[in-house]
């Protein structure tokens, strides 16, 4: 490790811990900091800004050690490798090199056998970039919040909450608490980014979830807010359940949760990390099923081997033993055995517990170990354990589905708008929902092609559904929320079709313009006191700064730009995604349909964004009263808007004259071997995840993506202008014309209703069925049979009440009563104690001689 790099973990650690420090300080001393805790805001802001400065310093250190090269897509030096995926050209070969990364194990919390629970960091270009982005966006949001939340400095009257006597709720301000949560949120997110093992990832994952719960429920007196917070938390739990399954699969398969290789003080390898197990250097970084998973899948064969070795080995004769084991291998390789074994993993119905048990037997028989080790490559080539890898990947992705609000767990995110607007900005731009995408990107090496396909499909579905819902939403924040869901879908889609860089690039650019959009909407809400766009209009005259910065944001998210020349940040990232999608389509014609949806989504995005902007800022004011009261926000709120607007424009550009650009920085972190392209699907025949570099290098994809996207977006913008800008067409007409579709969209595809139905229905239906049967029985068979039935029902009911319902109670009662009865043994009489002493000895002797004879 280069000398200056040694400071990198320390810098990032400090940047990570500063928000925690601010959190702790505010928790303990928040109310003491100025009137109403005004100082808390400044403290939190200062902390996150310092983090930002430290992150920049870290980035500088990083770049000084790892100078950037021109990314192949941007400087036009195209290596024409052709479209064929598996051809080895020099460009592909060099991309298989390991990315520069630092894995540091800072502190080992505990070690349970093989599993080390430690504070470990995985630092690469992605980590550094994420740090800069998160802290920068968070800094802007912090500054903005000091203005936005100023009402909380004194006592607040919440008009939306009525107390028992009908008056509005008055409560003390929660300024301190807000910043305390913000700091904790930033700390959690940074920790997640920095985490070097999955256990730590999971811990911070949950912490992020809790913070979002706290912040969404910030106005917890409002019923809607507390419901939304609960919803967010519970829906995320569903995802986290899957994640736990994935974690367990990973742990049992890899034997470790660390991402990188653990070494001891002398630098010797102690334990191989997940990445190097799943993409070992000796296998040319190809996706490799780790030993543990192969062993689990082949547990039956292994236990047979152990039994064999046990039976055959004469005690202590090593030489013979080796020969024997060779013989066994030969015997095993007979053709019928092979086919039988190959069939087995596909059905692979053996219970996991039994497998683990047998595995332990195998571990305790080192004699058979050599034999097993010999067989491992063959098993692996037969696909043993591959399904475990898929399960691990899918499980981990489940967690990301919950956190990044992907279909079908996207319902919580729009409801999360109940939190204060800066929080929405933070959640949507930099922290919570980005966490899911980040994690998918981080764990990219261990995703099998099938998992990537699932990710692509889910992402595609999400982006389309969310975009369509956004068309009809009238709440300004909800429009943005659905747009976030949709954009997250884009990112997942990109990752799924092999566009690792494209997805991440979009994550970064999206963070800037989405934060901008949210803060602008907050500014509007702050000025108007309402979220409803139908009451706005013409506001650009009252609040020009907000209006035009928001316009920049809208343009950026639409991917506006002059095709093939220059554009806003969104233009580059969206193009990269679409180009990769086209590349994917070329490689997998069977799955090409999802690409079309992605292009459609781009158009819809442009439409609803401009619909929103036009409804809010253009035209004539719809509500005079609100219009008159509207005013431009104070400088402390406008400042961050301007900063973010600039970033939204330029973040896709390289620094002139250098190779320094976001894209080339991220390119450094591309996981070894995860450039895909060479991974073939096993479960889904013919699935090829194309190499991302191909889409950059092939001008066909690039150009067609840029042009198509531009055309589609332009269409969307024009459509929006037709309806809302220059009202040539009345939206009401269209609404009536497409009434079924409109109701589908306005009801958010009835997703909430479907979930409600799915959750409640079984219980409800069952009870209704029972009730119906009951009634029918009495109505129709009002005779002796009916009475008998009634009697049986009654008995059953009594049984239910007396036995089933109260069995739990009774168990507890019995335990308690038994405990009380045991007290009576303790009579307090010393002579009885002594008798028990002697009797106990005798009884023990008799017992022992009875059992151990």
């Amino acid at each position, binding site marked *: 490790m280069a000398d200056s790099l040694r400071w990198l973990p320390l810098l990032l650690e400090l940047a990570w811990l500063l928000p925690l420090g601010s959190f702790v300080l505010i928790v303990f001393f928040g109310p003491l900091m100025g009137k109403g805790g005004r100082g808390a805001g400044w403290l939190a802001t200062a902390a996150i800004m310092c983090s930002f400065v430290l992150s920049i310093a870290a980035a500088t250190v990083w770049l000084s050690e790892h100078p950037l090269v021109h990314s192949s897509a941007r400087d036009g030096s195209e290596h024409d490798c052709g479209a064929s995926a598996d051809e080895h050209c020099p460009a592909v070969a060099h991309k298989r090199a390991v990315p520069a990364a630092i894995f540091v194990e800072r502190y*080992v*919390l*505990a*070690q*349970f*056998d*093989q599993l080390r629970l430690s504070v470990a960091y995985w630092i690469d270009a992605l980590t550094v970039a994420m740090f800069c982005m998160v802290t920068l966006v968070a800094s802007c949001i912090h500054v903005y919040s000091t203005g936005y939340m100023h009402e909380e400095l004194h006592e607040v009257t919440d008009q939306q909450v009525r107390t028992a006597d009908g008056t509005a709720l008055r409560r003390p301000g929660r300024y301190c608490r807000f910043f305390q949560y913000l700091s904790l949120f930033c700390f959690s997110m940074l920790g997640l980014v920095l985490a070097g093992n999955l256990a730590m990832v999971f811990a911070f994952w949950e912490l992020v979830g809790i913070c979002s719960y706290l912040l969404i429920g910030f106005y917890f007196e409002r019923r809607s807010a507390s419901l939304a917070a609960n919803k967010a938390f519970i829906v995320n739990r569903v995802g986290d359940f899957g994640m736990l399954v994935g974690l367990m699969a990973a742990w049992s398969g890899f034997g470790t949760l660390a991402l990188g290789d653990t070494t001891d003080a002398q630098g010797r390898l102690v334990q191989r990390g997940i990445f190097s197990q799943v993409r070992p250097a000796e296998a040319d970084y190809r996706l490799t099923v780790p030993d543990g998973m192969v062993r689990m899948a082949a547990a039956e064969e292994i*236990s047979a081997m*152990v*039994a064999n070795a*046990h*039976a055959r080995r004469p*005690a*202590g004769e090593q030489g013979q033993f080796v020969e024997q084991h060779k013989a066994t291998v030969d015997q095993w390789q007979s053709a019928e055995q092979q086919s039988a074994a190959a069939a087995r993993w596909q059905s692979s119905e053996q219970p996991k517990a039994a497998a683990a*048990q*047998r595995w*332990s*037997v195998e571990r*305790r*028989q*080192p*004699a058979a170990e050599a034999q097993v080790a010999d067989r491992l490559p063959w098993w692996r080539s037969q696909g043993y354990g591959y399904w475990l890898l898929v399960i691990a990947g899918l499980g981990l992705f489940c967690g990301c589905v919950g956190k990044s609000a992907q279909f079908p767990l996207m319902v919580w995110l729009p409801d999360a708008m109940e939190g204060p607007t800066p929080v929405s900005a933070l959640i949507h731009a930099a922290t919570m929902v980005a966490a899911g995408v980040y994690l998918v990107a981080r764990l990219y090496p261990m995703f099998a092609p099938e998992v990537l396909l699932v990710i692509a499909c889910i992402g595609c579905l999400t982006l389309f559904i969310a975009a369509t819902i956004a068309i009809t939403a009238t709440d300004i924040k909800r429009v943005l929320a659905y747009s976030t869901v949709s954009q997250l879908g884009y990112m997942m889609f990109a990752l799924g079709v092999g566009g690792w860089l494209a997805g991440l690039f979009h994550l970064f650019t999206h963070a800037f313009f989405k934060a901008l959009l949210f803060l602008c909407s907050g500014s509007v809400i702050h000025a108007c006191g309402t979220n409803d766009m139908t009451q706005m209009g013409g506001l650009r005259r009252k609040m020009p700064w907000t209006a035009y910065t928001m316009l920049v944001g809208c343009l950026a998210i639409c991917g506006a730009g002059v095709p093939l020349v220059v554009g806003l940040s969104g233009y580059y990232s969206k193009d990269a995604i679409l180009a990769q999608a086209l590349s994917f389509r070329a490689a997998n014609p069977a799955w090409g349909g999802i690409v079309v949806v992605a292009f459609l989504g781009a158009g819809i995005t442009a439409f609803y964004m401009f619909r929103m902007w036009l409804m809010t800022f253009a035209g004539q004011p719809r509500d005079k009263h609100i219009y008159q009261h509207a005013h431009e926000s104070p400088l402390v709120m406008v400042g961050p808007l301007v900063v973010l607007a600039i970033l939204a424009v330029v973040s896709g550009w390289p620094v002139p004259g250098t190779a320094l650009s976001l894209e080339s920085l991220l390119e450094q972190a591309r996981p070894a071997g995860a450039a895909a392209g060479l991974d073939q699907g096993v479960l889904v025949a013919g699935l090829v995840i194309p190499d991302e570099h191909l889409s950059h290098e092939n001008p066909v994809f690039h150009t067609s993506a840029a042009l198509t996207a531009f055309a589609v977006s332009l269409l969307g913008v024009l459509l929006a202008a037709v309806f809302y800008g220059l009202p040539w067409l009345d939206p009401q007409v269209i609404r009536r014309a497409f009434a079924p579709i409109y109701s589908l969209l306005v009801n958010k595809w009835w997703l909430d209703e479907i979930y409600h139905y799915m959750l409640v229905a079984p219980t409800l239906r069952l009870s209704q069925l029972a009730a119906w049967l009951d009634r029918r029985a009495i109505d129709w068979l009002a005779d002796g049979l009916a009475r008998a039935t009634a009697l049986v029902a009654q008995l059953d009911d009594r049984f239910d009440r007396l036995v089933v319902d109260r069995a739990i109670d009774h168990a507890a009662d019995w*335990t*308690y009563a*038994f*405990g*009380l009865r*045991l*007290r009576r*043994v*303790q009579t*307090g009489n*010393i002579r009885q*104690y*002594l008798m*028990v*002493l*002697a009797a*106990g*000895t005798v009884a*023990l*002797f008799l*017992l*022992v*001689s009875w*059992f*151990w004879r």
Partner: protein
Amino acid sequence: MSLPDLVQNALHDALHRSLPAIRPELALCTTIVCLLLAQMILPRWRSGPYWVTLVGAAAALAVLEPWQWLDVPAAERLEIFTGMLVVDGLSVFLRSLLLVFLLLFVLLVWITAVPPRDDAGELFVLVVGATLGMCMMASANHLVMVVLGMEMASLPCYVLAGILRFRKPSTEAALKFALFGAGAAGIMLYGLSLLAGVLGSLHLPTLATQLALLMHSGPTAEQSLLLTLGSLMLAVGLAFKLSAVPFHFWAPDVFEGAPAEVGALLSVASKTAALGLLVRLVLAVTAPAVMAPAATADIGPAADSFPQQTTADADVAGQGSGAPAAIVNSNAARPTAILPDALAPVRRFIVGLLSLLAVVTCTFGNLAAYGQSNMKRLLAYSTIAHAGYLIMPVAAAVALTGGIAPDAPASGGVAVGNASPGQTAEADGPALGHSGDVQTIGERLAPRRIAGAAPASAAQMAVASVLFYLAVYLFMNLAAFSITAVLRNAIGSERIDDYAGLVRRWPSLVVCTALAMFSLVGLPPLAGFLAKFYIFSAVVKAELWLLLAVGGLNTVLSLFYYLRVVRAMVLPPAPNDQSLPETAARRIGRLYCIGVTIPLVALFFWSETLMQWAARAAAGTF
């Protein structure tokens, strides 16, 4: 060698080798003398006994130098006083715990002022005397020292139980304790005489070797009858000290009658020593190859005559993951390594006995704690239950010393289950039959070299888990008892119901209580969880599933009554008539409680050092 030479040798050995090794004990003896002198010379120096004891305990800890053992890779096993005592990692660990407890105990008694200051001198003479005995128990290597240590630890405790000698409950407790203890001691002595008579020695390693040889040559039915009876009666004495069911009857009554401070001593220090002794005894007889005095025939058990496993540290550092080679070497260096195979029946017997005791004790303690209304009594039952938990890993350690020899059903169940029956029987045949010819021994030695590696370190980890549990247990129980004492001084009651509404008056103390109780249950962010985790993982390694099930079930059971204490403090409203004016003494009392609770949290996050130390201490025992 002439007689004067012999005497000279013995004296030289005692003065230059043995005495330096028992410096802590000497410091304690000096403390006793200083206490008496201080009372005689300076009768008006009322805080004198506290200072003297504090300094004495600190000095003892200082000369024990436990921190040395943090770095020393593997403990050196040193037999001193011609084999009477043994100094190794285990003894150093246990003695450090005892001395740390002594220090904390002095502070507690100083703060809570029980008994009256005039009696402090006698109190500390007794406490230091008891600690001395416990130290002897922790390093006993000879049955005389076992007896002497147990009596030295017990007798002062009888008096301590009655330290409030003008109160009826206190004297009643002392009487019950003394009579029950004397009865148990009588039974234990009787059993011990039988054991010694059959095996022909009182020296533990010799005794163990004799036992192994006896088992190897196949004991007659009469001999095994005597052995069984003798070891059972010995176990009764230990069970009394451990308050294991059904020899626990003294515990609840004594804990309730004696002041809470003495309760802490009985439940922490006494149990630490007893458990150390238990570990020593069972490991001595089940893993005698370690102690193998038969390896060399020279007179005077000098330390250098024992082949030392200097490589054991690598094994500990690897913690089960590695270093089989190291073990092979150290095994090969021991000529008597064959003997453990013959000891399989002994191991089975001990594992069965300890498992039985553990299961019964644990369940009984937890169930009987349910209906208690007196805090001290509740803690007494909790102590009993914890004795059960603590015995479990000892059983596991014994099971694991056997390695994976397929003839030990306790550990080899799965292996037997998976191999086909015919092969198993074949493999088991020679191991079970005690044919003494050399060839079989050689054959049996060979697979052990390969297979025995991991279990040996697993057994060490089991012992280490006991030690870790004891260290955590010290703080948990001390916290619980000192909270009881502080509250008794403040609100004048030890009834749980009278703790109502404390949360509003002394929230810090309630937090401490909650932490202590949750740690006793074994809930995650506290050291108690880790302790329980380690012992259960030891039990899992030994594949004693019944123990695991019972332990898990009992953890659930125990949650209820521990929570009840916290609930009593938090939920019911405070009685209005009580006011608690803040005084310096109360504040200090609370501070003390907080101070002993902090380690519970700290040890969860910084458990590594302690666990490593425990592992090293355990490694020295094998």
